[in-house]
Structure formats: structure tokens, C-alpha cells
């Protein structure tokens, strides 16, 4: 949570979007040692005197933006607006350009935003795709079964949006089966199915408890 919160702030400042840190109740209640960094990298956004704060020529670029109180007459509005921030809700060209720009700044920079971790995936036949607290159970399972000689690995998802479709597709091509344990009715399993050519087996659990390694192992024994 510490590292991802730092990253969330920096991503938010860099791309000028809200950044949500999605911990769950189990993660929130954990007590562990945290390694604090001696030096933290803080992203400072670019500013440009007189520059248009809401328009940019480069596709996928983020415009420079002043802070309040710098005498730049910054106009911020929740309504559709032009490159200077002036409200303009009746011009389809302006509206389309705005929607395009704010989508492109994320879609064109997917690779540097998306974050995942891989464990033992080089020679795996089965992959566990997990995130949040469940990834801890997942990793325990992978390590345990590896000791028994099972060729299993895990892809841990750290960003859920933009969804790491590239990595998921890559893993789905390499392995024979993918297992997605999650504490809901299969939200990420559905996404994984979009990108995996192999079978995607969801392990959904909605009983108010965290998914224990035994639950994942039970399902794996049935399909291995």
C-alpha cells in the first residue's frame, strides 16, 4: 500500500487524472514491517506561462497547467471546455477533441502506467492471475505446488485499470490453463477471458472471508 500510494500520487500528477488506491479490508487490516524509502521520487508537473492548460498538439500528451495564485487566470470548469478552459458545450468539434484527448493521454501511455509482477511463469503450464490480498494466497499456493513439481506460476496484477491486457494475453498464450481467484463474482476473470486463448477458470468467493490457499489448491487438484 505504501509504494502504490506513492505511485498513485505521482501518476495522478503526471496524467492529471484521479488515481484510486484500491485496498480491500484484509489488506487494510494487515500489520507488517514497511520499508520506508530514504528518498522519494515526486513528480512535478510541467508549467508554461500563458500555455493552454487543456489542449495539446501531441496525441497522448498532457498539457502544462499552472497552479492557482500564479496570476495565470486559470479557468477550471466541470463542463465541456476548449483548450483554454473556457466553457463550450455547444460545439461538437470541441467536445470530441476534449474526450479524445483525455482518453488518449491514458491509452497512449498504457505501457508505462500498467504494472504487474510475474512469478515462475517461464516454464508454467498453469497460471494463477490474482490481485490484492488474494495474490498472497495465490503466491503461497504457487510456491507450495512448485515444491511438488507442478509447473505453475502467477501473474500478479497491480494496476486494474488500464487493464494489463498485454501481459494477460501473453500469459494466456504461454500456458494451458488460467485460474483467477477473486472475492467477487468473477470481474477480473471476465476480463482475462477476453484476452486468454486458453481456458480461464474463475474461483469466485463471496462469503465475507478471504480466499485461503486450500481453496485454490482444491480447484487446482481437480483440473491438473
Amino acid at each position, binding site marked *: 500500500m505504501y509504494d502504490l500510494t506513492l505511485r498513485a500520487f505521482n501518476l495522478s500528477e503526471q496524467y492529471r487524472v484521479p488515481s484510486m488506491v484500491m485496498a480491500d479490508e484484509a489488506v487494510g487490516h494487515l500489520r507488517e514491517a514497511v520499508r520506508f524509502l530514504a528518498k522519494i521520487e515526486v513528480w512535478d508537473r510541467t508549467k508554461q506561462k500563458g500555455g493552454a492548460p487543456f489542449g495539446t498538439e501531441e496525441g497522448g500528451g498532457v498539457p502544462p497547467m499552472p497552479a*492557482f*495564485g500564479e496570476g*495565470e*487566470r*486559470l*479557468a477550471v*470548469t*466541470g463542463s465541456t471546455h476548449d483548450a483554454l478552459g*473556457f*466553457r463550450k458545450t455547444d460545439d461538437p468539434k470541441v467536445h470530441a477533441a476534449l474526450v479524445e484527448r483525455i482518453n488518449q493521454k491514458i491509452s497512449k501511455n498504457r505501457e508505462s502506467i500498467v504494472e504487474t509482477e510475474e512469478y515462475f511463469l517461464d516454464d508454467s503450464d498453469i497460471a494463477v492471475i490474482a490481485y490484492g490480498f488474494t495474490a498472497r494466497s495465490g503466491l503461497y499456493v504457487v510456491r507450495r505446488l512448485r515444491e511438488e513439481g507442478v509447473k505453475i506460476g502467477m501473474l500478479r496484477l497491480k494496476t486494474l485499470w488500464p487493464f494489463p491486457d498485454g501481459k494477460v494475453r501473453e500469459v494466456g498464450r504461454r500456458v494451458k490453463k488460467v485460474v483467477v481467484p477473486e472475492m467477487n463474482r468473477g470481474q477480473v476473470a471476465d476480463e482475462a477471458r477476453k484476452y486468454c486463448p486458453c481456458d480461464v477458470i474463475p474461483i469466485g468467493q463471496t462469503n465475507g472471508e478471504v480466499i485461503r490457499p486450500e481453496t485454490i489448491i482444491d480447484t487446482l487438484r481437480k483440473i491438473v
Partner: protein
Amino acid sequence: MGLILRAIDELKMDMKKMLFVSGIGCAAWIPSPHFDGDTLHTLHGRAIAFATGAKLFNPDLCVMVVSGDGDLASIGGNHLIHAARRNIDLKVICANNMIYGMTGGQAASTTPRGAKTTTSEEGNPYRPFDLSRLVMAAGATYVAKYSVTQPISLIHAIKKALRHVGFSFIEVLSPCPTQFGRRNRLDRPEEMIQELLRRCILEEEAKGLTEEQLAEKMITGEFLK
């Protein structure tokens, strides 16, 4: 709008260094996009939340909030009382027309009991907030209430609020003929203005009146200085 500009001008403040925050509603259009400073036109009810954030980041910034009663005291009521409680140095000007006007005339937390609105066709059954008293009780440190028919007093109050360090609240009784007046037997704008002229009195003027006469009066003035 004119009164705010005059107050700023008389104090010789640099508007370009000021931040004007507003929500959604006709009053919210007073500063945005017209004022020659930083403007922040936010979501309905959240002007004070945004203003608090901006002030937190840069305490040297002079932050003025201009919005309506629906925005500040109805949907945004919670932000209002907590900002007042924390005495955050914001200059809040609330144009109170006792209704959610821009959205078509729905009853707000300030709508008088018995008034006809689109959501109270039989007459509003609830008693309204007395905004000035509410904000004072919450913890504001400068509170004034005037009608648009008292422009000189208003300019004076706005200047006081601009110079005051702490949560300032100016309630400005403003007529809305289109949504309020039309449904409550005050069809014409001049009728609403005349009603305000008749009903708004200062504390001193209230002294000589009988209880019956006082019933329909609205006392204006600086309640907390």
C-alpha cells in the same frame, strides 16, 4: 456581481491573485468565467470542498466562494457547516433565493414553509434553515445578511469579509422571479424587489415594531463581526 467587483476594487486587491470558486446554479455564474482571476467552477454542492482543498495547498491564496443557497446549503450543506466549524479562511457569498432555481425550481433547505415549488406543489411542509444562524452556530467568525436592495451595506460587508481572516459568510437575499416568484404570487421582478424593500430591515428599525409587524420582517445586518 457588480457589488463584489466594487468591493474588490475599493480595497485595491489584485484580482489576478484571487481564486473564485463556485458550484452549480445561477449564482455560480457570477465569478465563472467572467472574473479576471483564477476561477473554479465545480460540481453541485462541492464549491466549499474544492475551496478548502485549494486553500490547504496554498494558504496565502485569497479564496472566495460565490454560489447559491441550493448549492451551498442544501446539497452542499455538510461542507458548509464543517468549513464554518473549522473556521477555514474562505469568503463565502451565498445568493439566497430560497429555491433550487437553475434546475427548474425545486424546494431547497431555505424554501419558506408553505411556498409552492415544483417539488412542493401543495406548499412546502418543512421549515427552512436560517442560514446566518446556522453558520454562526457552526463556528463562522464573520456573518452578515443583506438583501440585494441594500447595495451599499453589501459592499461594506464584502470588504469586511475580504479583510477578515477566518470563515466569512454573507447571505444575500436575491429574488428569483422565474422559479420562485412566478409560483408564489410575485410574478413580476419588480414585485419581488418591492417585497424585499418592504420586508428587509435593520436591527435598529426592528425595535419600534409590534410582534405582528415583525412577523413578516427579515432582519438584516452584520450578525457577527
